[in-house]
C-alpha cells in the first residue's frame, strides 16, 4: 500500500494534514478542508454537550410532577436553549460540516472543496452565531421555544429573543455557504472517471442536503429578520393586534424547518450506507434506487410543511393535501430501510462499532419514521400533536437516527482522520449502551404522549410520573454513553494503535491515501471504480 510515486517530492512520506504548522494562528487561518472539519468538530462537540446539559436539567426536573429543581421560568429557558442549540448548532452542521467537509473532496478525488476561503468563512459564521446564542444564555436566556411562535416571541416574551434570532440568522449563512461550496465541488471537482452514478451515497447525500440548505435557509433568515423587525419596530407582520397573521409565521417557519429535518437525516443516511456496505463487504443493494430516494426526499421534503399545522387553524383542505404528501414522502425512506436490510443478504458481515451504530440507526430511524406516519394522518395528529408522542417521534429520528449515524461515522473514519485506532471493546460497549439508554429514554415518551401529556410542561399530573421517571433513568444511561466516546477517543489520540491506510478494507477513494491524509489529499492518483466495488480486490 505504501509504494509512493517517486516523482512527487514530499517532505515526508507519512506527513499528514495534522503535521506542518501546528500554531493556533495556522489553524484559525487554514483553508484545508480537513482542518476546517476538525475546527467544526470541536465547535459542534462543545455545543452538543451544552445542549446536553440543558437536556439533563429537563430530565432531572421531570422526575417530580411539580418539577424537581427548576422553576417554570428556568425550565422554559432550558428547553428553548436545548432546542436551539441542538437543532442549529449541532444537528444541522454535524455531519455535513465535519464528516462532509473532511470526506467530500477525498471521496471524489479532489484536493479541496471548490472555495476553501468560503469554507473557512462558514466556520467563522457558525462560531459567531454560536457566540450570540451563548451570549443570550449568559444574559438570562430565552423562553420562546426553538420554534419562536408568534405573537409570543414578538410581542409577549421579555427575554433575549433578538440575540438568539441574530445568532441563528448568522449561522444560517454558514449553512448556505457550505451548501453552495459542496454543490460546486461535486459538479466541478470530480476526478476523471468519477461519474455521477459512481459517487458514494455519502456524496449523493451531501449533494442533496446542500440543495436543501441553499434553497430553504434563506426563508429562515427572512422569517427571523421579520421577528426582529416586529419586536423592535412593531411592523405588524405576525401579530394580529397590529394587523398581522400568526399563521403566516408558522407557514414561513415550517417551510424552512421541515426541509431542515432532511438536512439532519439525509447525511445520516449517507454515512450509514457507507458503513453497511463496508462491514457487509457488498455493494449497497439497489444503488440507483438509493440515489433516487435521496433526491426524492430532498424535493418532496419541501412540500410537507403544513403537517406541523393540522390543529393550527389551517383550512381542512390544506391539511388533507399536506397529509397525503407526508405519506408520500415516507415512501423513499421506506425504500432505504428495506435496501439496507437487503444489503445484509449473502454478505460477509462483521460487527465492529461503526456497524453497531449503523444497525442501531436503521432500527431507531425506522421506528421514528413509522410513528411519523401516524402523525401524518390528521385524525391522529389532532390528539397527538404537541404531546410527548411528537417529542419521542422526532428524537427517534434526530437522536436515534442522526446522532447514532454521526457517531458511527466518527468511529468509521476515525482511523482515517487521526491515523489512530480507537479501542474496539470500549466503542462497542458504548454503542450498545447508547442503544439501550436511548430506548429507555424515549420509548416511554410515546406512551406519555398517547396518554395526553403535552410537551413543554414544567409540571404535570401525577399519573404521568412513572413514565417520566423511566425516561429520566434512561437519560442518565444515555449521558454516560455519550461521555464514554469522548474519553476513549481522546485517549486514542495518544495511545491508540497506528491505523493503516485502509484498516477496514473499504473501497472509497478516501481509503487509498494515507491516514491521516496529506495536506494535498492524494500523493498518487487514486484508482476510480464503481462505488462499493467490494467484489473486486482493493486497489
Amino acid at each position, binding site marked *: 500500500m505504501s509504494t509512493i510515486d517517486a516523482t512527487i517530492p514530499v517532505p515526508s512520506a507519512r506527513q499528514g494534514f495534522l503535521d506542518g504548522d501546528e500554531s493556533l494562528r495556522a489553524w484559525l487561518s487554514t483553508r484545508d478542508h480537513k482542518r476546517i472539519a476538525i475546527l467544526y468538530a470541536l465547535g459542534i462537540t462543545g455545543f452538543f454537550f451544552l445542549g446536553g446539559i440543558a437536556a439533563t436539567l429537563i430530565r432531572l426536573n421531570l422526575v417530580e410532577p411539580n418539577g424537581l429543581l427548576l422553576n*417554570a421560568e428556568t425550565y422554559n429557558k432550558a428547553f428553548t436553549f436545548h432546542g436551539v442549540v441542538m437543532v442549529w448548532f449541532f444537528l444541522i452542521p454535524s455531519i455535513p460540516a465535519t464528516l462532509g467537509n473532511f470526506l467530500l473532496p477525498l471521496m471524489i478525488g479532489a484536493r479541496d472543496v471548490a472555495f476553501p476561503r468560503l469554507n473557512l468563512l462558514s466556520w467563522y459564521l457558525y462560531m459567531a452565531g454560536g457566540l450570540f446564542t451563548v451570549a443570550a444564555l449568559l444574559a438570562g436566556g430565552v*423562553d420562546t421555544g426553538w420554534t419562536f*411562535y408568534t405573537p*409570543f416571541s414578538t410581542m*409577549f*416574551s421579555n427575554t433575549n429573543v433578538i440575540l438568539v434570532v441574530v445568532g441563528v440568522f448568522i449561522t444560517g449563512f454558514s449553512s448556505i455557504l457550505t451548501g453552495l461550496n459542496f454543490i460546486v465541488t461535486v459538479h466541478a471537482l470530480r476526478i476523471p472517471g468519477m461519474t455521477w452514478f459512481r459517487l458514494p451515497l455519502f456524496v449523493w447525500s451531501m449533494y442533496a442536503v446542500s440543495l436543501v440548505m441553499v434553497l430553504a435557509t434563506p426563508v429562515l433568515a427572512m422569517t427571523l429578520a421579520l421577528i426582529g423587525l416586529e419586536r423592535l419596530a412593531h411592523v405588524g407582520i405576525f401579530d*394580529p*393586534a397590529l394587523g398581522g397573521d*400568526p*399563521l403566516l409565521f408558522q407557514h414561513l417557519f415550517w417551510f424552512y424547518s421541515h426541509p431542515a429535518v432532511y438536512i439532519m437525516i439525509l447525511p445520516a443516511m449517507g454515512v450509514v450506507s457507507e458503513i453497511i456496505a463496508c462491514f457487509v463487504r457488498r*455493494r449497497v*443493494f*439497489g444503488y*440507483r*434506487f438509493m440515489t433516487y430516494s435521496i433526491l426524492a426526499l430532498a424535493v418532496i421534503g419541501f412540500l410537507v410543511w403544513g403537517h406541523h399545522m393540522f*390543529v*393550527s*387553524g389551517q*383550512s*381542512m383542505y390544506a391539511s388533507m393535501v399536506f*397529509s*397525503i404528501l407526508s*405519506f*408520500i414522502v*415516507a415512501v423513499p425512506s*421506506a*425504500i432505504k*430501510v428495506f435496501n439496507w*436490510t437487503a444489503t*445484509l*443478504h*449473502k*454478505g460477509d*458481515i*462483521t*460487527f465492529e462499532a461503526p456497524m453497531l451504530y449503523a*444497525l442501531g440507526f436503521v*432500527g431507531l430511524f*425506522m*421506528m421514528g419514521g413509522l*410513528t411519523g*406516519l*401516524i402523525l*401524518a*394522518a390528521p*385524525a*391522529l395528529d*389532532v*390528539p397527538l*400533536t*404537541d*404531546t410527548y408522542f411528537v417529542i419521542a417521534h422526532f428524537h427517534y429520528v434526530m437522536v436515534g437516527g442522526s446522532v447514532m449515524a454521526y457517531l458511527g461515522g466518527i468511529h468509521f473514519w476515525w482511523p482515517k482522520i487521526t491515523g489512530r485506532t480507537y479501542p474496539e471493546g470500549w466503542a462497542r460497549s458504548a454503542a450498545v449502551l447508547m442503544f439501550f439508554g436511548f430506548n429507555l429514554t424515549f420509548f416511554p415518551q410515546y406512551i406519555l404522549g*398517547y*396518554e*395526553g401529556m*403535552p410537551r*413543554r*410542561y414544567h*409540571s*404535570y399530573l401525577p399519573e404521568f410520573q412513572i413514565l417520566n421517571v423511566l425516561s429520566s433513568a434512561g437519560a442518565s444511561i444515555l449521558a454516560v454513553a455519550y461521555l464514554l466516546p469522548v474519553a476513549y477517543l481522546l485517549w486514542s489520540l495518544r495511545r491508540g494503535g497506528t491505523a493503516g491506510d485502509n484498516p477496514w478494507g473499504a473501497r472509497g477513494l478516501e481509503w487509498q491515501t494515507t491516514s491521516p491524509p496529506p495536506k494535498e489529499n492524494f500523493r498518487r492518483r487514486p484508482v476510480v471504480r464503481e462505488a462499493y466495488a467490494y467484489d473486486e480486490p482493493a486497489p
Partner: protein
Amino acid sequence: MSALSSLPQASSIAPQVDALFWFMLALCVIVVLGVLIAITVYSVKYRRGSPADRSGRLAQSTGIELAWTLIPLALFIGVFTWSLFVFARMRSPPEDSQTVYVIAKQWMWKAQHPGGQREINALHVPLGQPIRLTMTSEDVIHSFYVPAFRVKQDVLPGRYTQLWFTATQLGNFPLFCAEYCGLDHARMGGNIVVMAPADYSRWLEGHGGAQSLAARGATLFRNHGCSGCHGANASVHAPDLDGLYGRWVQLVDGSTVIADDRYIRDAILLPKQRLVAGFAPIMPSFSGQLSEEDLLALIAYLKSTSSTANDPPAIGSESTHEHD
C-alpha cells in the same frame, strides 16, 4: 381496545380515532418486527466465517424494489383515506350542536354559556349533547386539548377557531393547553365536567347569569350606539342586522361573504376591511372599546335575531368563505 390504555374514550369521536390508531400501530409493529427479524437472521446467517451459501447474490432487482415502493404507497393511500373520513367528521359539527364560547388568555380558560353562565378553567357539558366551542385568545396562541375526547384545536388571537365533541362518559376529564404560551403554560389547565342532562340543567340554573349572553349583547348593542344606525328606526342609512347571521352578504368589490362569527367580529373591529355593497363607509372601528367577551355577546345577540337558528355550516376551523 381502550383496555390497553388508561386513557378513557369519553367522546363520540374517540373510538373512531383509536380504531385508526391501533390499526396503524399494528401495521408499524408488523413492519418493525419484519425488518428486525430480517436483520437478525441475516446478521447471524451471513456473519463472517459462517458456512452459509453466498452465491447468486443480487446487487439490485427492479422487481423487488418496485414491490417495496408500490406496496407501501398503496397501504399509505388506504390509511390516508380512512384518516380523511375521521378527520372530516372531527371538523364538521353536527347541526344540533350547542355553542359555548371559550376565551383563552395567559394562563386561564374562560367559558361562556349561551345562558350567560361563566366559568374559569372548567367547562360543564351535558352527556350526549354535541358541543361546539367557538374560541379566541386575548394574547398569544393557546391550544384547547382534552385527551379523553381526542380533540385539540389551537386558539388564536384575532380570529375564531372551532372544535366540537359529544361527551359519552360522565365524569371529570383534564383539559390542557397544548401550545406553549409562556411562563405558566403547564398550569393552564382545567376540567371538563360531563353531567347527566338533568344535572346539567340544574347546574345551569344554579349558576345562571343575570342575563343570557344574547341579552347582554342586546344591552351592548344599545349602549355602544350600534342601534342608533343599525336599529329598525335609525335615520342613518346602515344595514339592518336583524337576521343577518348566517346570510350571504354582497360586498362592494362584487364578492360575497357569509356573515359568520369571524365576519361580524371583523366588521366591528375593522369596518373598512370588507365594505358592504350599497352603503357609505361611515362606520367607525370599535377596536379597543369592546373586550373579547363583549364581541362574543354581540355575536350571540345577532345570532338570536336570525331566523336560521343554526350556525352556518362550518367546514374547517378557518372560516374564510370569500367567493372572489
